[in-house]
């Protein structure tokens, strides 16, 4: 069970703390992350800025608290989009097979061979660099592996006897795809979904680092991106948001593993 899996519970606790700070932090701390509060590059421990200041004297703690929301929202939205596109394409390709399946897999391969970062950068450059565009861009470049995984699971499950049995009981194709095969294919997909959240947060950070995120919205990636020039002289300005990203990605991965065990009836306690 999930609750007996120590590392999964630890992951859940970390994620809850991060979610709490993202929701309540800005209100409790109340410092504008864009305001210059003190001198530039003050180390952590300064009375005006507990986690130090960045290259132009802005409070890093304020940036961390406000930026958490953007990072998490983009990560979750992009992951959701990735799963929706990937599962739909993979399910239809795997269930129907034949020409439809082949055509969908060629489309998947087309997206797979495009360099993900370049494609995402192109999409963001073509449209405005808002959080929505960033989330959509991440979704568009990362659904292919989900589609392939879903297709493989569908190919395996669609020939099992209980799928035949479901058909014998009068279920039609759409029902079989979403209510019979998909639930059986879920465990690996849930793990993938949590990993995708982590990857999406990293991707968003990477794009911000390259200056391709919305500069008017504070996010962890933006803090790292704007302070990359001071990496050697002021380690805290990039390390603190880096640790936050690491902790978030780690916590969702741990939860994913825990869910995998909890969802698999064979691993459950009797």
């Amino acid at each position, binding site marked *: 069970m999930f609750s007996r899996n120590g590392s999964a519970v630890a992951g859940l606790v970390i994620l809850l703390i991060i979610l709490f700070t993202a929701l309540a932090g800005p209100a409790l701390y109340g410092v504008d992350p864009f305001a210059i509060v003190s001198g530039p590059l003050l180390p952590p421990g300064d009375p005006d800025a507990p986690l130090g200041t960045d290259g132009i004297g802005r409070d890093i703690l304020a940036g961390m608290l406000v930026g958490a929301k953007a990072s998490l929202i983009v990560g979750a939205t992009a992951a959701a989009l990735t799963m929706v596109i990937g599962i739909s394409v993979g399910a239809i390709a795997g269930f129907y097979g034949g020409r439809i399946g082949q055509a969908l897999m060629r489309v998947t391969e087309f997206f797979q061979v495009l360099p993900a970062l370049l494609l995402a950068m192109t999409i963001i450059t073509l449209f405005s660099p808002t959080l929505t565009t960033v989330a959509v861009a991440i979704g568009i470049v990362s659904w292919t592996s989900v589609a392939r995984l879903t297709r493989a699971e569908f190919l395996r499950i669609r020939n099992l*006897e209980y799928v035949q*049995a479901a058909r014998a*009981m*009068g*279920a*039609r194709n759409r029902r079989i795809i979403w209510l019979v095969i998909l*639930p059986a294919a879920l465990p690996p997909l849930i793990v993938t979904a949590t990993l995708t959240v982590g990857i999406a947060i990293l991707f968003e950070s990477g794009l911000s680092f390259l200056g391709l995120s919305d500069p008017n919205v504070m996010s962890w990636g933006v803090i790292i991106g704007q302070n990359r020039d001071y990496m050697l002289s002021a380690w805290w300005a990039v390390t603190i948001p880096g640790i936050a990203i690491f902790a978030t990605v780690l916590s969702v991965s741990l939860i994913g593993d825990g869910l995998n065990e909890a969802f698999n*009836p064979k691993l459950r306690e009797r």
Partner: protein
Amino acid sequence: MQPLLSIKDLRISFRSRTSQFAVLEDFDLDLQKGETVCLVGESGSGKTMTGLALMGLVPSPGFISNGAISFEGREMIAAGRNRAAEIRGKNIAMIFQEPMTALNPVFTIGEQIAEMLRYHEGLGRKAAIERAVELLRAVGIPEPEQRVHEYPHQISGGMRQRAMIAVALACSPQILIADEPTTALDVTVQAQILDLLEEVQERLGTTILLITHDMGVVADVADRVVVMYCGRKIEEGPAAEVLADPRHPYTSALLACIPRPDPEATTRMKLLDIPGIVPAASARPAGCAYAARCAFAFDKCRAERPPLFEVAEGRSAACWLASKEHSQ
């Protein structure tokens, strides 16, 4: 009397790039309300294909190339998928050979029964689970209130087959197709499952089409028996008469294969078998398909295929030995 289900002139073909051949040909069968009909034959005789055709489940690249199946006088093959899907599950249900693989491992037993009730009868979630508990009790599962929340892997093989029967019975179908329902079970459990099917039939008046290769099962439960060989019906009749006095040499041979322990015997009994193998569906001979293995075959058997001769009231056999001119 109009039969509940009627199969006329059914042919199922398989198509490959280069050829097409039939795995079931000229097949007629009527099922009356409340009777148990056994379909017997070796692997590849087309008995399972017949069951799958009734459920609209003929596996690709197979397809129904000729014939008609009507349920209560309404045509099913031409009726379109939606109409057929309505009849499947609600009016005609099927139980499968392997209860382990035919139950969905990711849903509880109760959810799977409830699913049928919610889908076909529009029951609410709570009412459906309550009905599921009743159904589990009716098929003899102890502590149904607890079992309803368990997954298929948590219960034994016999219990799973009972659960499978409960799923099939959820909408009180008029016809239950059972494809070797006891083959995967222990001998002691087999008898219990057969008893359960008989009990269900008595209580609900269900028509049962039992597909089996076990003549012992036929003797036990069948009202009528249909013997199949190479995709054709070769003998049909009331079970007691066919078992006592088979008219087709293949039926006799099948009956001879049942081991009968003899307490008087001092040496070990030799197990009998039928020499030769079933010809492949793609290479059926011109004459009687059984001729090559038949001890009584003569020239006519190899040259011309015998049609079904009516040998007695409600009995028929596809053998030249059963024809009138031969018996004279």
